């Protein structure tokens, strides 16, 4: 639910990183936080457990600057990957403008990816949103590991509609900005 505030001339858009546990959602945000110019980003908020598993969400606001008189900002969120935090995952999806699904490419995580994707569809449906109508991109993360599934196979299971997808190695930043740029542009197009 992008909010266009004509009084203060601001546009805020919410992008949510979704996916199975330990897939690299938080790592994506941490990389973005480190690499964007400090004056364009706010504080990275992490509501995590003592073992650094996301408990509620991570949050990073990034300013695009003033575009045609509107201060334009993206709010990036991650959700907890672990299944038993579904209540938190659903809350974060409220008002989402764009979704990034961060898949774990390792062969043994295929079922977890599929389960998380189903869960994403279900949680969005509960708000009356249809993922096929929302700006949506996929990142196949952890491509540097030895036991990864081929991208074709991942596409077959996770990407039947062939939305834009990117290969990633999030700790090194590979694919992180390509993914973010793609979803951000889709969100902006949906406003125009």
């Amino acid at each position: 639910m992008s909010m266009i505030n004509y009084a203060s001339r601001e546009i805020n858009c919410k992008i949510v990183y979704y996916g199975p546990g330990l897939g690299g959602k938080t790592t994506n945000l941490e990389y973005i936080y480190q690499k964007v110019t400090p004056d364009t980003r706010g504080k990275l908020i992490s509501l995590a457990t003592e073992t650094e598993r996301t408990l509620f969400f991570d949050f990073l606001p990034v300013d695009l600057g003033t575009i045609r008189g509107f201060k334009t900002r993206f709010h990036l969120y991650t959700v907890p990957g672990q299944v038993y935090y579904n209540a938190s995952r659903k809350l974060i999806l409220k008002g989402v403008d764009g979704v990034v699904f961060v898949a774990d490419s390792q062969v043994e995580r295929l079922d977890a990816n599929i389960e998380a994707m189903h869960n994403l569809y279900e949680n969005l449906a509960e708000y009356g949103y249809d993922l096929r109508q929302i700006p949506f991109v996929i990142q196949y993360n952890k491509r540097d590991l030895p036991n990864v599934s081929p991208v074709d196979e991942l596409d077959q299971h996770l990407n039947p509609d062939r939305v834009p997808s990117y290969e990633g190695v999030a700790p090194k930043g590979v694919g992180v900005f390509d993914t973010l740029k793609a979803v951000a542009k889709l969100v902006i197009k949906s406003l125009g």
Partner: protein
Amino acid sequence: MTPGGAPSWSFGPSDSQRIEEILSNLLYESNARCALLVDRTGQLVTTVGEQPNFDSAAFASLTAADFSANDQLATLIGEEEFSSLFHQGRNESMYLADVGKRLILVVLFNQQTTLGLVRIKIKDAVIGLNKAFEDVFGRAEDEEGPALERGFVDEAEDEIDRLFRE
């Protein structure tokens, strides 16, 4: 607005003026320091009173999360909702109240006033805000807001390329 996605809503200068009047009046009558309106998705709508010296984007996002988590707690104990929350600090306290299930009013106050007074005045303000936002959302469903200037998308895309790179 994205079909099938989340509806957008827009907020013009006259809405803003009406809402800020309600909030200013609330601050005057309750002697609280600052009032913020946050939407349930975690975005800051407006701030009235002393300008906060904290990261307001983070504050708005955490406020929405706080309220949402407490909604779930309410459901678990068999309540439909908690329509207000109160957080007490040694010096600074905050009172949060639901506005039409779509926004949250947050009032920051210190020992120069009392919880009882703040609570009574917030109730009045919430009635006024509910009415104001019924009009905002009623209109949002009927019609789109003014269109963004032509060229907005192209310019934003250029800026995305410039900002999101190594």
